[in-house]
């Protein structure tokens, strides 16, 4: 009965984007609007002695200069849309502005806010603010920060934010039984989201004293957090989310909102703040840098018997989502492999670098880079085919994760995805240049979709049939560009037999649209998709019951197709949808529904030994890559990428492919060029001249293969694919480089310099 599901229909937002009509967060202005700028710390570690704002305040055109003293609640805890308090170390300090007498923790930490009549005046005022610092030594390396007498990043709290563990079987016995043991250490750097839309927002007061904030955010539930900062009731702060110009996790934390809200409250005027690219790169969160030590023991036949992993995650200056990332990494540490003896330890550590928080993949990538590099190494050591080694060890449907023991009840598309990805490479390219070596690599893995179950996640959606047969959707869903909003329309239209051009979605308003939760954690297709489906089915049932009465049949015998309620066995007998609607309205039958979908709920697990369900479900997949490496220059060219995932059901195949293609190329950057270098707390990549992301000439055409098991927990059996599609690609490229050159890259990105250095080592042996 599926009419729209599974079809690559154009997104509802597509035309507004190609015509340039769509108004993003920085395209909006209001009469009398002021411009904000932020005065930020020049040092990564210091005590803030004093702030003198008098010169800035007296500059003509300056309307407000605020410091921490002006913030009603300057220190609260970080929340990310969860409506329950998790505690247990999962909530960190949210400090709006640096406070006198306390420590500055990173370069770019906000100290004072300015609102002025123009951007230039605001910038001038920022430069007139006089700040006295007492410089402190700071600590920049996480291994240094973990030492007992290390410099403390915060005031009193330990530099170690969280520790996670996972123990299964007997690790000592496992290694004793092993015939082959390999050990390695990997270093994974900070990277940046590099979305093209810098952070932006505008705030204003309405006639009832409500703070309105129009902003590009992945989490409109932050209205509560901003209300806490302002010391206002939650219902007096309203978020109006715009279509987002890319996020990838970087717009999951609060960005500009608290600043503009404070300035609006002070001046009673609209205030706009747009980050420059440099400000965006230097001051928004990064993907956690990791140091990973892996040890794997196996039998000569390839069967893995023991795995030990030790992770140190560099959290930077503040906690934000660090604990959650640590948990994701720990749960993912064994990958999709059945291993009887396991010991995982993860420590997340504060340093005086820019803070790390959410980034597509969220700890799972870092684990995936480690375990899939190790699998390749093990295959080489055993002289086995890397695919065969994975076949021997991979888990299947109904098996438990080797970390938490959570049983996977949906389809585990392994080794199927790996086999398909590998075969998808086809015939190898032939190198015409003797210095250019061709190599192939494979990696597979798993990643959760949906939030951690102890967050007790839910989503809501409203669906209404209008008297003229048009359809209204209301959802608080933020659209990152993945087509999140349009998908809800597609689902409701599918259930109610309405064409897409008669569906209008009203979206992302924290007060007027039902809260759909965050667009993070690959959760919207699963969570809000199910909420939309539930609401649409409620309306559909009411229509069918009334239409059945009119047509004198049983409701089960009816379907809604192309705006007609038809009798399934005889489609010549029907009621036009508008007639059915009229009949319902005449009888007072509800043609709207607001439905809530709840994920499975669990208690907070024992963090020292994570066990049982921590996620609703996982998506499985693999990527295969062919590279050409010039052994004279060290240059790597990725020739082919095949990405194969079980997507459950591709609700809109063009959107799913878009995620898989984009995820692969973002991963190509992670593997080969992206490195947010910070030297003694000083960022070295303040623009896209230094921070290099892939361009169209770096990116091969990604070949996508979608397995549709229909076993997922999302609507129609869909699984989430946004983050999983960014897994596997990095180790697949690294393994291909090894295949081509014999160089194992253990510190990404695999720059030409690192490859040449690796090759020289071989020469000099």
């Amino acid at each position, binding site marked *: 009965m599926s009419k729209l599901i599974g079809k*690559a229909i*154009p*997104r509802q*937002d*597509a*035309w*507004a*984007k*190609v*015509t*340039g*009509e*769509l*108004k*993003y967060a*920085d*395209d909006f202005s209001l009469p009398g609007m002021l411009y904000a700028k932020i005065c930020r710390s020049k040092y990564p570690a210091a005590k803030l002695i004093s702030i003198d704002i008098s010169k800035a305040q007296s500059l003509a055109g300056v309307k407000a200069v605020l410091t921490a003293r002006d913030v009603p609640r300057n220190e609260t805890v970080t929340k990310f849309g969860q409506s329950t308090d998790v505690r247990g170390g999962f909530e960190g300090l949210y400090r709006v502005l640096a406070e006198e007498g306390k420590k500055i923790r990173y370069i770019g930490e906000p100290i004072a806010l300015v609102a002025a009549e123009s951007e230039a005046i605001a910038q001038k005022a920022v430069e007139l603010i006089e700040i006295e610092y007492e410089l402190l030594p700071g600590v920049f390396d996480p291994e240094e920060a973990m030492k007992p007498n290390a410099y403390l990043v915060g005031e009193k709290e330990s530099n170690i934010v969280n520790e996670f563990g996972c123990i299964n079987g007997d690790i000592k016995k496992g290694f004793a039984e092993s015939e082959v043991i390999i050990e390695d250490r990997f270093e994974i750097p900070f990277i940046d*989201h*590099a*979305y*093209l*839309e*810098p952070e932006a927002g505008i705030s204003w007061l309405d006639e009832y004293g409500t703070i309105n904030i129009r902003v590009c955010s992945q989490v409109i539930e932050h209205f509560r957090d901003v209300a806490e900062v302002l010391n206002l009731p939650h219902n007096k702060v309203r978020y109006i989310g715009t*279509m*987002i*110009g*890319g*996020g*990838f996790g970087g717009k999951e934390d609060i960005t500009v909102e608290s600043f503009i809200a404070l300035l609006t409250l002070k001046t009673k005027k609209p205030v706009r703040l*747009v980050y*420059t*690219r440099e400000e965006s790169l230097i001051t928004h969160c990064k993907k956690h840098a990791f140091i990973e030590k892996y040890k794997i023991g196996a039998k000569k036949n390839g069967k893995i018997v023991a795995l030990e992993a030790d992770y140190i995650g560099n959290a930077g200056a503040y906690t934000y989502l660090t604990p959650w990332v640590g948990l994701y990494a720990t749960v993912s540490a064994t990958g999709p492999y059945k291993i009887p003896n396991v010991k995982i330890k993860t420590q997340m550590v504060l340093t005086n670098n820019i803070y790390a928080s959410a980034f597509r993949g969220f700890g799972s990538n870092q684990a995936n880079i480690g375990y899939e590099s190790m699998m390749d190494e093990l295959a080489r050591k055993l002289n086995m085919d890397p695919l065969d080694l994975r076949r021997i060890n991979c888990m299947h449907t109904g098996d438990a994760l080797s970390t938490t023991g959570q049983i996977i009840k949906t389809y585990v598309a392994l080794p199927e995805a790996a086999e398909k990805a590998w075969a998808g490479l086809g015939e190898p390219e032939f190198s015409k240049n003797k210095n250019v070596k061709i190599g192939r690599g494979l990696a597979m893995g798993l990643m959760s979709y949906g939030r951690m179950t102890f967050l007790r996640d839910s989503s809501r959606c409203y669906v209404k049939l209008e008297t003229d047969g048009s359809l209204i959707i209301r959802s608080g869903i933020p659209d*990152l*560009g*993945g*087509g999140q909003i349009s998908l809800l329309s597609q689902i409701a239209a599918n259930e109610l037999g309405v064409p897409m051009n008669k569906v209008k979605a009203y979206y992302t308003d924290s007060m007027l649209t039902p809260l759909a939760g965050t667009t993070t954690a690959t959760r919207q297709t699963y969570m809000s998709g199910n909420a939309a489906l539930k609401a649409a089915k409620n309306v559909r049932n009411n229509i069918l019951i009334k239409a059945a009465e009119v047509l004198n049949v049983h409701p089960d015998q009816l379907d809604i197709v192309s705006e007609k309620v038809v009798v399934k066995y005889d489609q010549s007998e029907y009621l036009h949808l508008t007639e059915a609607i009229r009949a319902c309205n005449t009888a007072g039958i509800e043609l709207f529904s607001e439905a809530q979908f709840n994920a499975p709920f669990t208690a907070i697990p024992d963090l020292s030994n994570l066990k049982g369900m921590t996620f609703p479900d996982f998506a499985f997949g693999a990527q295969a890559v062919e590279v050409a490496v010039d052994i004279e220059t060290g240059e790597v060219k990725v020739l082919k990428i095949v990405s194969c995932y079980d997507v459950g059901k591709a609700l809109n195949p*063009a*959107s799913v*492919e*878009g995620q898989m*293609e*984009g*995820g*692969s*190329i*973002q991963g190509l950057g992670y593997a080969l060029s992206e490195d947010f270098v910070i030297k003694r707390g000083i960022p070295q990549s303040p*623009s*896209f*001249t230094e921070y290099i*992301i892939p*361009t*169209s*000439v770096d*990116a091969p*055409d*990604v070949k996508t293969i979608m397995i549709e098991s229909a076993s997922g927990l999302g609507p129609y059996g869909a699984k989430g694919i946004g983050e999983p599609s960014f897994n596997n690609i990095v180790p697949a490229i690294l393994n291909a480089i090894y295949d081509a050159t014999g160089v194992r890259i253990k510190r990404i990105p695999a720059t030409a310099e690192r490859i040449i250095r690796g090759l020289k080592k071989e020469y000099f042996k």
Partner: protein
Amino acid sequence: MEDYQIELTVNGEKICSVVQPEQSLLKLLRSKGFTEVKCGCEKGDCGICTVLMNGKTIKSCITLAMQANGKEIFTAKSLEKTKIGRKLQESFVKHGAIQCGFCTTGMLMAAKGYLDKNPVPDKNEIRKAISGILCRCTGYKKIVEAIYDVAEENHKLEGGIHV
């Protein structure tokens, strides 16, 4: 420094403005309501502010407003007025070559500017032509395919190229 009075046409509309010598064309266009021209870096790195100036693709963030004095500018709002612009828009929509959309208008202008000069490129030429514009969402494949589809159509139209 002195301010200057300049005159230019944007999408056929005459614009008179007083500008500062250091003001970028991007800032001028956005201040005049042409918000379809996006600001991504203001350093010429990302290319999403690309517009056509006298038929040439330029990055408006590293072009001074004064340099546009007496020139003819086209932004994405003009696309639907040309056959090839409309075809490109349709093709981007059809291929799902749009995700967040923040690079889209710049990408379309680069494609338009290039197809005006070379109406029948192959995919590699298209990749080179748009390599000055960053996209973080799509991995470029669908964008290249969308532009190639329009080019292919040109190819079939012996001499009768869309403009």
